[in-house]
C-alpha cells in the first residue's frame, strides 16, 4: 500500500510539473501577450513599460522566470495576480474552492442517482418502450450546451415566471453554508439540477450498455439456471461488474469538475468558484492565476484517478492494481 501511495505521489508531482511547464511555454509563446504593456496601462511610455517589466521580473530568461513563479507559488506562497495587483493567487483559489466543491458534490450525488437508476431501469426493461425513452432523454440532455441550458433555466426562474411559480428562487450568487445552510441549498438548487442533467445521460447510457453486456455472461446464465430472480441477478451480480466503467468515468468527471471544469455553470449562475476564476484569468491572460488554477485542477485529476484505481480492486477482486 505504501509503495502504491509513494508511486502515486511521485506521479502527481510529475504530472503537475509537466503541465506547469507547458502552460508557461504556451503563455509566452502567444504573440501580443506581453504582460508588461498591459500591466503598465494605456498610453504608458516605453520608459514606464520597461520599469514595469523589470519590477515583475519579465526581463529575465524564461527558465529563471519559471523558477521565480514556482517559488512564489509553492514556497513563499505570495504569488500575486498580474491583473488585480496585490490579490494573492493561493487565497483566491482557497476562497473559491468551497463554492465549486459545494456545486460539484451536490450535482454528482444527483447525477449518480439519476444516471444509475436510469441505467438499471433501462436495462431491466430492455426492448420495452421505456428503454429507448430513457436513452433518448439522456442523450438529448448531453447534447444541450451547458451555457444555453443555464441561461434558459435563468430565463424561466428569474424572468417571466419569477413573479408567479418561481418567486422563491433567489437571485444568482452564493451563500456560504456556514452563514445560512438553507439559503446555501436554495441558491445551489438550480445549478445542481443544471450541472447534473449534463452528466446523468452518459451514466445511464453507459451503465445500461454494460449491464446488458453483463447479462449475457456465463455467470449470469448460471445464476438464472440456479433460479435466482432477474432482479437479484441484475443488482447483485451484473451491477457490480458493470460499475468499472461508471467508476472510471466518475473519477475523470469528478476530478475535472472539482478542478474547475464546471466553469460555464458557474458563469451562468454567478457562482465565484474555481471554474469562474480560471475562466476570467484566461480571458485576462493573467498568468499567475492561470498557473495556480491549473495546478489546483491537475492535483485533483491525479487524486481522483488514484482513488479510482484503488476502487477497481474493490469492484473486481481479480484486478491487480498497478
Amino acid at each position, binding site marked *: 500500500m505504501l509503495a502504491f501511495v509513494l508511486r502515486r505521489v511521485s506521479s502527481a508531482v510529475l504530472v503537475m510539473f509537466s503541465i506547469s511547464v507547458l502552460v508557461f511555454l504556451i503563455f509566452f509563446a502567444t504573440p501580443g501577450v506581453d504582460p508588461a504593456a498591459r500591466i503598465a496601462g494605456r498610453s504608458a511610455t516605453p520608459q514606464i513599460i520597461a520599469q514595469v517589466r523589470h519590477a515583475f521580473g519579465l526581463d529575465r530568461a524564461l527558465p529563471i522566470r519559471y523558477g521565480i513563479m514556482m517559488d512564489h507559488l509553492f514556497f513563499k506562497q505570495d504569488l500575486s495576480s498580474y491583473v488585480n495587483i496585490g490579490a494573492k493567487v493561493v487565497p483566491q483559489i482557497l476562497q473559491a474552492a468551497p463554492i465549486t466543491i459545494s456545486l460539484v458534490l451536490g450535482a454528482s450525488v444527483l447525477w449518480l442517482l439519476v444516471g444509475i437508476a436510469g441505467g438499471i431501469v433501462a436495462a431491466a426493461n430492455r426492448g420495452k418502450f421505456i428503454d429507448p425513452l430513457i436513452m433518448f432523454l439522456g442523450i*438529448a440532455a448531453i447534447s444541450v450546451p451547458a451555457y444555453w441550458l443555464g441561461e434558459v433555466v435563468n430565463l424561466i426562474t428569474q424572468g417571466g415566471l419569477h413573479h408567479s411559480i418561481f418567486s422563491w428562487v433567489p437571485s444568482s450568487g452564493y451563500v456560504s453554508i456556514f452563514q445560512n445552510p438553507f439559503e446555501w441549498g436554495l441558491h445551489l438548487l438550480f445549478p445542481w439540477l443544471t450541472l447534473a442533467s449534463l452528466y446523468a445521460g452518459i451514466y445511464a447510457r453507459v451503465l445500461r450498455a454494460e449491464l446488458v453486456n453483463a447479462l449475457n455472461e456465463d455467470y449470469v446464465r448460471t445464476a438464472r439456471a440456479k433460479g435466482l430472480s432477474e432482479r437479484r441477478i441484475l443488482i447483485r451480480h451484473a451491477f457490480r461488474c458493470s460499475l468499472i466503467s461508471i467508476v472510471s468515468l466518475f473519477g475523470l468527471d469528478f476530478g475535472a469538475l472539482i478542478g474547475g471544469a464546471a466553469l460555464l455553470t458557474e458563469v451562468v449562475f454567478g457562482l465565484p468558484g474555481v471554474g469562474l476564476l480560471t475562466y476570467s484569468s484566461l480571458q485576462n491572460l493573467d498568468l499567475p492565476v492561470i498557473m495556480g488554477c491549473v495546478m489546483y485542477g491537475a492535483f485533483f485529476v491525479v487524486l481522483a484517478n488514484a482513488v479510482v484505481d484503488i476502487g477497481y480492486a474493490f469492484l473486481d477482486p481479480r484486478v491487480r492494481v498497478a
Partner: protein
Amino acid sequence: MAGLGVLIFIVTICLLAPIYAHNIAHTNPFASNIQGSTFINGKRVMLLQQNTQGLGFGVTPIGPTWNFSHYFLGADDQGRDVFARLLYGGRSSLLIGTASALLCCIVASILGLIAGYFGGPIDWLLSRVFDIIWAFPIYLLAISLSVVLLTSGLNIGPLHIGAGSLFLPILIIAAVFIPYVARPLRGLTMSLREREFIQAAIGSGSSDLRILWKEILPNAAPSVIVFFPLMVAFNMLTESALSFLSIGVQPPAASWGTIINDGLGLLYTRPWVALAPGIMIAITAVSLNILGDGARDAFDPKAKLRGSI
C-alpha cells in the same frame, strides 16, 4: 434501422444545402443582409426590425416564418437565413464531430487496451499521459493557438494551417477526449485480463498481439461503440467553444456550434436560433446511438445467441 434512416436523412439534406439555399430559399447564407427585407403574407417586412414600442431601443431579427421558401427559422442578427445556415453548418459539424470522435475512439482504444493489458511501466506511463491530457487547460491552448493562427498561421513542415482550417479542431478535440474513452477501456481490459479464457489463451502460448486482437478487442468493442455517438455529441459542442475562440469554423462560415453561439445573444427574443442546432445535434447523436446498438447486436455473437436486443 430507424437510426440509420434518420442519419442518412440528415446527411442528405445537409449535403443538399447549396441546392436549398440557391433554388428554394433564394438566399446567400453567408452575406450580411442588415437592411434587407422579405415578403410575409404579401407584405414587405424588414429582416431586422427596429423596436417601435416605448423608448424604441433595440433591433430584433424576424422570427420563424415556418415557410420553406424563405426564412423558415427566421433570421439571425446579420439578417441571414438561419435554416439555410443550419444545413450548411451541418456539413462542418458532422465532419468535425464524426472525424474527431472516430479518431478519438480509435486512438483511445489502442492506448486503453495496451495500458490495461500490459500493466507495469507501460500502464504507468500511459496513465500519466492521460492525466496530463485530462488536466490540461485546453482553453489556454486554444486562445494561444487562435492568436497564432490569426496573426501568422502555423507552419508545420510543408503544411500551412490557417485560421479556417478544420484540421486543427479535429485534432484538438480528439486529443482532449482520449482519456475519457481510454480510461474506462483500460479498466475494462484490466478486468478482462484476469478472466479464464484469457488466462487460457496466454497459457496456450498465443502472442500478446493475437490475444489483444482476437480476445480483448471484441469484448471491449461494445463499450467503444457505446461511447462513439456520445463523443460525437460532445465534440460538436466543444467545437462551438473553439469556434468562439476563432479556431475552426470562421465567420461567415457556419457550423451548428457557431449558430448556437450566435443564438446565445438572441436568447430572449429569438430562442429558435440557439434551439435548432441543439436539436440537430441531439437527433444526430440519438440516431448514431440507435445505429450503434444495432451494429453491436448484429456483430456480437453472444447477443445473437441469447436472442436479446
